[in-house]
């Protein structure tokens, strides 16, 4: 898919995703070694966005399994369309049970879910298993099975084996430790907060109207906030939001009033806002 690490960076950048060297290298290797990529990191650093960007670059369909507490096989793998099956049974009253059974357990009544969808068919796909840590431990067993053999067995239909393996990205916020077995299947990538230079480039790309001086100040203040001990430090998503807000406010430099009035865009907790205001020497809020 990619000819070099630079090729990865360049093509991701075309889609609007600016990759750090670590991100580009790991994506390159995941493609070369054909291994799933496990991406961990705090909220809002572009984990989900990365998978979307890779799909766009590869001209592949993005198949997304959004994990949550209670997600199960019928949501992740496949499910039979019971309602339709019932209709079919009551419609053909005089056929034998055997006939009916062969029919209702056929392709027509199958509802494929993301994991099955991702391994069927010949078109290129990116499988995004998002927020894996939110799913219960049992689901990990299922993932492990699918990601080991890239095949799924539907007892009534037989085994489906991927003819073309999807590029797999798993993301996690580490709210729960994923199992060692699952980790071993994957290449590991930690995305942290970007270096200043990268973050400035992200701001320039996403909020092009903002002046250079203001872009620089925004990134500096965000960097200072991240070094503070806050309940929730601002992520890239907040940097972008703040830059947009400042643009909308028509500010041309940062000053105390502007920062004070817009701090709520970056920080979500009242005590964080107070703490930051104190450390930034803003007058009392």
């Amino acid at each position, binding site marked *: 898919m990619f000819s070099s690490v630079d090729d990865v960076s360049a093509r991701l950048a075309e889609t609007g995703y600016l990759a750090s060297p670590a991100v580009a290298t790991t994506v390159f*290797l995941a493609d070369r070694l054909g291994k799933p990529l496990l991406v961990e990191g705090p909220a809002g650093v572009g984990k989900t966005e990365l998978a979307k960007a890779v799909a766009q670059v590869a001209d592949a369909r993005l198949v997304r399994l959004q994990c949550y507490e209670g997600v199960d096989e019928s949501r992740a793998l496949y499910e039979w369309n019971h309602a339709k099956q019932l209709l079919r049974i009551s419609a053909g009253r005089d056929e034998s049970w055997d006939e009916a059974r062969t029919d209702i357990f056929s392709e027509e009544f199958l509802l494929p879910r993301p994991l099955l969808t991702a391994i069927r068919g010949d078109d290129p796909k990116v499988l995004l298993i998002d927020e894996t840590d939110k799913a219960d431990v049992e689901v990990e067993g299922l993932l492990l099975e699918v990601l080991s053999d890239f095949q799924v067995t539907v007892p009534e239909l037989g085994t489906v084996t991927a003819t073309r393996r999807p590029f797999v990205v798993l993301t996690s916020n580490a709210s729960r430790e994923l199992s060692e077995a699952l980790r*071993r299947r994957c290449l590991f990538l930690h995305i942290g907060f970007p270096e200043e230079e990268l973050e400035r480039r992200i701001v320039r790309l996403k909020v092009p109207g903002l002046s250079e001086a203001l872009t620089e100040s925004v990134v500096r203040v965000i960097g*200072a906030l991240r070094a503070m*001990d806050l309940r929730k430090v601002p992520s890239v998503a907040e940097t972008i939001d703040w830059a947009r807000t400042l643009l909308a406010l028509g500010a041309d430099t940062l000053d105390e009033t502007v920062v004070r009035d817009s701090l709520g865009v970056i920080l979500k907790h009242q005590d964080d806002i107070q703490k930051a205001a104190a450390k930034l020497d803003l007058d009392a809020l």
Partner: protein
Amino acid sequence: MTTPAGVPERLTGLVGALRAHGVRVGTGETVDAARAVEALGLADRELLREGLAATLLHGTGHRTVFDPVFDLYFPRGIGAPGTGAADREELRDRLAEALAADDRALMARLAAEAVDGLGGYGSSPDSDGWSAYQTLDRLRPQTLLARVRTGVRERNGGGGPEFADRLLDDEIRRRIEAFRAMVGSEARRRVAERRDRDMLARRAVRPTADRVDFLFAGRDQLAELRRAAQPLARKLATRLAARRRRAARGTIDLRRTLRGSLSTGGVPMRPVLRRRRPVRPELVLLCDVSGSVSGFSDFTMLLVQALHDQFSKVRVFAFVNRIDEVTALLDHGTADPEGLSARIGAEATLTGWHGSSDYGVALGEFAERYGDAVGPRTTVFVLGDARTNQSDPNLPAVRRIAERARRVYWLNPEQRSQWGTGDSAAPAYAELVEMHECRTARQLSGLVGRLLPV
């Protein structure tokens, strides 16, 4: 990369060193790492670093070990930087400029020159080497702050005061910190050229925070530990739940099994298990928070607090030479682990006439004032080094607590061989209650997983 030869050996050495630091690396990962080297080539050292990290590591925790080990096995270059002997003042001038420009590449080159010019010691081939400590002690980069500040202001052309300028000092401090780390890895690299790399990788690379002695951990390591308390608690909660399930499986209730068998003609088809009462145990913590052991007690308090929903009640008491309840301070403390000890210091009464620990007085005061906190369902943990500063250890007080409680455990952050030396009353206390050595976060999590009641 100057020496592409011997890459397989380097990789094996790297993997061996990682394993010695407790990173579990399997054969599969090693094979992947070799394929990564092949795919990436050796031209760009930083890409190689990321590629090897992606294939060999499975989590964020080991990155702090990986990076210095990588630097040893895949060094930036070999030999001295190839500049003349460095003059201290001239180096400081250039460093101040590099810091003002935040030019990381230049900073790395200056780190190499500094170690070369200021860090060498000894002259005989066996006893000489390169010291980061000596380099930094002579160069004193931290004293450049004011000069760098002026330098940055000049660069910005002195246009009116910018809001973000109030952040400048902290930014400069972070740059200086980065430079110090560069000096550290450069000194290790130089030493590695002369000594056995494998030996060095095991010894000179700082262990992960969970393996550092609480008593010797630095500030940043303690901070790292405090951040690790929540995730560790989640792991321990899983372990406790498993133990609880096992305990609850219990024994067969014969009477109920037979009664249930009436419907199956008296054949006991389904054994009925005796259920344990689902009462969760109570926990009391008595923590020495005096300077010497506060890193240890802080971490343990945070950990237990994070586990509080595993228990029907958790009460925490802190002492130096007086004891006070701090349960409420901890409740609010999860959001701000860094501030915990400051809050305890500010809001609890822990000292009387002097500031050093007195176990006897503190434990006596506990038995007297808070005796009701301990009952037959309570497990008590005492945290501290049992160093009484020559005062009476007050063994009867401990005996009274032990008599009322279900269990009493004492976790001592000192090495067992130190117990009883100097003013340590550890052996005397250990005769009354079960005392465990608990030097590192790793040991603590093992003990907590095993000893906590379910």
